[in-house]
């Protein structure tokens, strides 16, 4: 087993392969505070990529309600039960990752769901953490909470699916870090399903081979954001690249939000795969749950988010979310605008900090018509 450094757990960890970093790493930031679980992302992905026979219960993108939702059923709590609680010393993980738990040279720790676990993608939808007494909303804030967690493949730095495949039918692209299943080589052993902590590799019962989110690579190769990102009506998502072989760049919105400011956090970093979907934690959810889900740094991130109005550069980066179908690789705050440039160095978007307001007169003299506010 090789030893590889995992920056999310601030230490080296075991992994079956040594490999150089990709030239750059595709990454996403999801702002959980803005997600309304409309599932537009899910439908966009499903329509484009998984509408076929054998893909009936396959959702490369899904949005589930936390704490009780999960697709496939209990994907995360079952692994946490097997792996035991995460123990952190400051930012360093003291407990074992899925690559270490079974011992050296063993397949990663995991569990294989059953077909039924995929049958109800929205089980637990909108369920609150606790019962709310009738009328309690008259008494101020109640304690029950829930939030929506949008999930896709994490295109991990250390993918467990890749580690588990005895045929090397899963590979991570050196040009952008996208993780793919070789559709010619896969023989449907499902070791990848078992190993992926996020259960984002799926078994197609018609093709009898595994499939997973392809990171919309045909779009990424042209500098366009993934379909789930572009279609998000709540503009909760940003798609770009993290720097891998150099210091994080202040003008790369992904580097800035994830690595420099640490406003967005990885999902279950304790599993050790170094996932590349980063979440801005929901500010209304109690820390203990979020600590378990996102690891160290939740309190700081929440504080930063609450203080955004005074944090012009960070706010500028957040204004790029959903603002362009292009992947933004560089940004700047110019006066009252946040400006983003695409992979070709072209200006892709310019977002004002304050949306201009227009007042329209009651009578439109050009058209000789009255305007009615019928809303």
């Amino acid at each position, binding site marked *: 087993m090789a030893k590889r450094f995992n920056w999310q757990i601030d230490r080296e960890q075991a992994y079956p392969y040594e490999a150089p970093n990709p030239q750059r790493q595709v990454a996403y930031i999801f702002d959980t505070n803005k997600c309304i679980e409309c599932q537009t992302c899910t439908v966009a992905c499903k329509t484009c990529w998984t509408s076929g026979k*054998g893909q009936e219960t396959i959702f490369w993108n899904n949005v589930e309600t936390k704490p009780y939702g999960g697709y496939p059923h209990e994907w995360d709590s079952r692994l946490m039960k097997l792996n035991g609680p995460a123990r952190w010393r400051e930012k360093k993980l003291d407990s074992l990752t899925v690559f270490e738990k079974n011992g050296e040279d063993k397949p990663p720790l995991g569990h294989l769901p059953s077909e039924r676990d995929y049958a109800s993608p929205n089980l637990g939808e909108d369920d609150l953490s606790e019962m709310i007494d009738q009328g309690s909303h008259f008494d101020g804030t109640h304690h029950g909470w829930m939030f929506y967690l949008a999930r896709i493949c994490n295109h991990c730095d250390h993918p467990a699916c890749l580690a588990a495949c005895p045929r*090397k039918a899963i590979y991570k692209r050196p040009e952008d870090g996208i993780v793919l299943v070789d559709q010619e080589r896969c023989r449907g052993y499902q070791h990848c399903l078992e190993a992926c902590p996020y259960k984002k590799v799926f078994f197609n019962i018609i093709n009898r081979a595994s499939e997973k989110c392809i990171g919309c690579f045909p779009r990424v190769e042209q500098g366009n954001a993934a379909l789930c990102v572009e279609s998000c009506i709540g503009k909760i998502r940003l798609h770009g690249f993290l720097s891998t072989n150099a210091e994080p760049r202040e003008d790369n919105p992904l580097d800035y939000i994830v690595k420099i400011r640490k406003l967005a956090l990885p999902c279950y970093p304790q599993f050790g795969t170094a996932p590349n979907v980063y979440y801005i934690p929901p500010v209304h959810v109690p820390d203990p749950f979020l600590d378990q889900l996102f690891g160290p740094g939740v309190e700081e991130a929440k504080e930063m988010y609450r203080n955004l109005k005074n944090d012009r550069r960070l706010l500028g980066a957040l204004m790029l979310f959903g603002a362009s179908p292009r992947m933004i690789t560089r940004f700047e705050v110019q006066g009252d605008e946040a400006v983003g440039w695409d992979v070709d160095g072209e200006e892709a978007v310019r977002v004002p900090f304050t949306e201009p307001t227009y007042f329209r007169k009651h009578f439109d003299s050009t058209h000789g018509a009255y305007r009615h506010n019928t809303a």
Partner: protein
Amino acid sequence: MKRDFDDRKILIGMIGGAALIVVTMITAIFLVSRRPVVVVVPGADNAGRSGVAGPADSAAAGSPSTTIAVPEGPPPEITVAKVAAAPAIEDPLDPAWDKFAAVEVDLQPQTVAEPMLASATVSKLRVQAVRDDNRYAWRLNWAKAQPADVSEIGRFSDAVAMQFPLVDGAPYTMGGPGMPVRMLHWKAVWQRDVDEGFQGLAALYPNTDVDLYWFAQGKRPHAASGSLDNPQAQQWMIAAQADNPMADTSREHPIEELTAHGFGSSAHVEGTSSRARGVWSDGQWYVVIDRPINANDPLIERFDSDPDKQMIAFAVWDGDNANRGGRKHITNWLPMRIAP
């Protein structure tokens, strides 16, 4: 900080305690047996392992912690008897088979390369082998309480395979670099595909309905083979588009021929001339696999080159115990003598 310090003390105590127990045990064994005690550290000496015939070219193949236990005595020999007419593959229960000698071979869980088989559920395989002027035929028989013959999430198929070296010295562990082997692989789910039609969604879940399959033609439930063959519908059937041999919704034969040069390297051989048929009867699988005697067949050429000194190995998968890929029961090479 106090808590961390306590944790560390506990850890040191545990390690120290464990070391003390190990030392005590070794001393005790020495005192009782008066023999040198060798403590084997798994993975410490890859080169020195006996029983592993070649390097394992596997993704997850690390250092095996155990090797195949070699049974006492010489391994059983498979004799391919010359007969006037080898039984056809159509009926694996053909009484003609009862006239031919059977050899019982021991199966062991595969523990050479990860992913290994933790515990064995099939221990014996009965092998019969005959040939006539036109074909070789083997009948393989093992006990299985219920057939496992579907392919689903977390559900795997019973299967059996025979392996032959294509060069001398090829390791029984699916060959090695530059030392290829050839396999003939029968799967129960493929047999069911052939017997009853492709085991797709409607076969697995008869009450399922799906709102829409884009570009599907004909009537629901839109069989994967037939109503989804058009290029538009095939856009989503990527493994089939990539000619993945697993993704064959109109399979004609329940057998696949493969070549390999180490664990994790098996590759489909197009257009096998072998045929197979398996039936499950009264708690037993009976699978017949044949091989026509054709010129320019590397397997037949090898059989002909030295009929007395052939090798064969077997693998059996128990689908109900999540056997697939490397999680299988295997034999080492067994001598195979082709009677004149």
